[in-house]
């Protein structure tokens, strides 16, 4: 037994590497189910979305970059999936330069078919991803969704949208056409014409600014997804009701996926992450047990 503990103490670190690798990758394949408890802040967001009637228009603001991809990308994917399944139209913008590109990536990810797309008046616009098919649903660029790209100006962009949406985002980002050409924009003149704002944020500008300007000034409900580091900072807005739900980190993403009924990367990664975490904790415990077991022996020898 003593020998065992001594060996354990000087264990080849490659054993640890293998365990961590397995802990992270096995759940990806096995799609293990762990029961994720849906916390109230995620439920609030889901309920708020559920109350929207069909055809409601949602502003999706992607305020993050690839650095936060593991945490926020699943929220974008499950969000889009939910919008598509429930016939909600969405308009993508970004207060971070890379945000709208991340949104494109998320759409690509959930789309099952990519096809060319002909606009009603016969003008061909070929891009390759114009038609997005998710299960039985098909959505079209410019009619059911649109990507308006990034705009400089942080919270001022929000303020500008308050008086005139077109002033803040004159053109779409895929074709550089005036937004008036797309039917999805009919009647969308200012921020308060939107029914909901879905904000994915990794810092400034982000959820804090959306709450301050969009909610407080223009009374559009905002639901947000945040990185785990960012989430505690906007937590207080939940209590005051200024924020209509919050997805915090990978765990929040996984809870949302559970509600949406789509097992995405957050759910799968949650298991991986938790498993790896538990193994690290276990290693620490084992290391200490082995340490005490051998130290006791050594001190006796010393006597």
């Amino acid at each position: 037994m003593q020998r065992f503990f001594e060996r354990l103490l000087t264990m080849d670190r490659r054993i640890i590497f293998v365990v961590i690798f397995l802990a992270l990758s096995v759940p990806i394949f096995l799609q293990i189910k762990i029961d994720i408890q849906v916390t109230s802040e995620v439920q609030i967001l889901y309920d708020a979305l559920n109350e929207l009637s069909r055809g409601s228009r949602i502003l999706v603001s992607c305020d993050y970059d690839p650095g936060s991809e593991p945490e926020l990308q699943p929220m974008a994917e499950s969000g889009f999936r939910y919008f598509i399944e429930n016939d909600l139209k969405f308009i993508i913008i970004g207060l971070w330069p890379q945000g709208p590109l991340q949104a494109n990536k998320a759409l690509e990810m959930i789309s099952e078919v990519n096809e060319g797309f002909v606009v009603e008046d016969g003008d061909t616009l070929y891009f390759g991803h114009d038609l997005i098919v998710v299960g039985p649903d098909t959505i079209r660029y410019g009619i059911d969704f649109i990507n308006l790209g990034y705009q400089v100006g942080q919270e001022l962009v929000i303020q500008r949208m308050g008086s005139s949406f077109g002033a803040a985002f004159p053109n779409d980002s895929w074709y550089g056409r005036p937004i008036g050409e797309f039917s999805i924009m009919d009647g969308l003149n200012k921020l308060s014409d939107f029914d909901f704002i879905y904000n994915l944020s990794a810092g400034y500008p982000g959820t804090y600014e959306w709450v301050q300007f969009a909610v407080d000034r223009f009374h559009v409900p905002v639901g947000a997804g945040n990185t785990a580091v960012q989430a505690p900072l906007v937590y207080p807005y939940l209590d005051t009701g200024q924020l209509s739900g919050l997805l915090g980190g990978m765990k929040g993403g996984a809870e949302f996926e559970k509600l949406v009924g789509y097992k995405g990367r957050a759910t799968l990664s949650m298991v991986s992450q938790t498993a790896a975490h538990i193994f690290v904790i276990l290693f620490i415990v084992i290391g200490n047990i082995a340490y005490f077991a051998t130290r006791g022996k050594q001190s006796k020898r010393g006597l």
Partner: protein
Amino acid sequence: MNRILLSISLIIILPFVVWLAHKGPGESSVSYPPYDLVVMSTPGDSAGSITLNWFSLEGDDETAQAFPEYKILRSEAAEEPFDEIGVVSFDSPRATPKTRQFRDTTAVIGPSYFYKVSCQTAEGIIESNIYGPVQSVAQPPGEEPIEIKDIILFPPTQLRVFDTPDDNGHSITLEWKISPNDIPKSLMFNGYDIFRSTSQDGPFERVGETTGGISDQERGVKTLADGKEVRDGTSYYYYVEAKWNGKTARSNIAGPVKSRQQWFHTGRGVSLVLLGILITSILFYINYAKAGKKLFIRKIAGLEAVDEAVGRATEMGKEILFIPGIQDMNNMQTIAGLTILGRVAKMAAEYETKLDVPVSRSLVMVAAREIVKEAYLNAGRPDFYNDDMVYYLTDDQFGYAAGVDGHMMRRKPATIFYQGAFFAESLILAETGNSIGAIQIAGTAMPAQLPFFVAACDYTLIGEELFAASAYLSKEAKLLGSLKGQDVGGKLVFFSMALVFIILATIASFSDSGLIAKIARIFSVN
């Protein structure tokens, strides 16, 4: 005994000095009458009526019963007497949740008017500011007749412009009392546009925009710095326009104002005093030590181990690997790391042990070569030096880590130093170094990486110890004196200031919370 007296007097006098050096924010030019009355000729009313707008009194809300009404008073001169021209009762419809409006339809075109509002409350009569002179002007008719429940967009007022203090020019600060329509959570407001001109008569050009709301809570004003192509020395005029729903309302024109560069930051008086004390103290102890006075410096375990670590590499006939971080020469941590390299190189030269310094910046390569060469020269071993001991890998963080990792695995150095600025690669390097059984001595001032070095290295110089290392290793009196100086002029001062002001703040916390904010602001840097 003397020293104790000195310390006590330091503790007592210093906070006062700091208090004196502290220059509070400039006096506000903005006035705060209880109602904040603003009066203007009604826009869109060709009959030339005048509209008054003021913030409603406390208690004037849906539940109000106690105070019956506001009296509207008018005069044709700023002095008394004012005549009552109307009343607004508390139960009348209101313009916005926080404001009241009154339309004076008896004003005639011609004379100038002055207005004020008063109200009999339980505490007595409260009167607003006197606003005027205002003249009735027949405004071009609007599309629809204006009713009292319609919201009139009022302009921001009391616009003041001044050169942004304590900066390097190219910036002018605007400060204004927000429009009465600019109410938190109001849907009826879209922010402000800033207009600028080089002459009072224009043309004015829109140079910026900003959101609504008060930015300086304490003084109740909105401030904004205009830094858009502001040329130093040019006179500018400004006005600010409130906007809502396509309507605008412009403030007074303020100016002329010129921006200029300030060499000394007046608000940083405290900073200057404290920095001055620190520098004086360091200089004093450097001289003190130069004069041959003995100074005690406590043992720093990580630095005591340097000798042993270099010795071990010698015994084992293996090399010493020195990593000066991944930042360039414009980072003090790199420079501190290189000063340590100088000491280590000298030891290595004396012990005739091979030294290996991969670097991730070209400038660091040049500097490190100079240092190592000089160290070998000083140790009397210039023949052992060779430029290839210091070599460049790549500027890239992880590319560098990959290269160094491979190097460690192949050459298996006996001793590894990590001294400088590190980021996420810290643990990648330190774990690899650990796996080959090297003695590792790390030192960095990156707080986020310290835990990883502490976990994976044998010794870690924490923050300040990195900067003290060169002095400690050299054992030179002058350098050791500077350590004593930073203890006395920095830590002791911090301690005494903190103690005195914490006591003050604690006392204040039981009586007046405004005082705490004032105390804290003494040390604010802006």
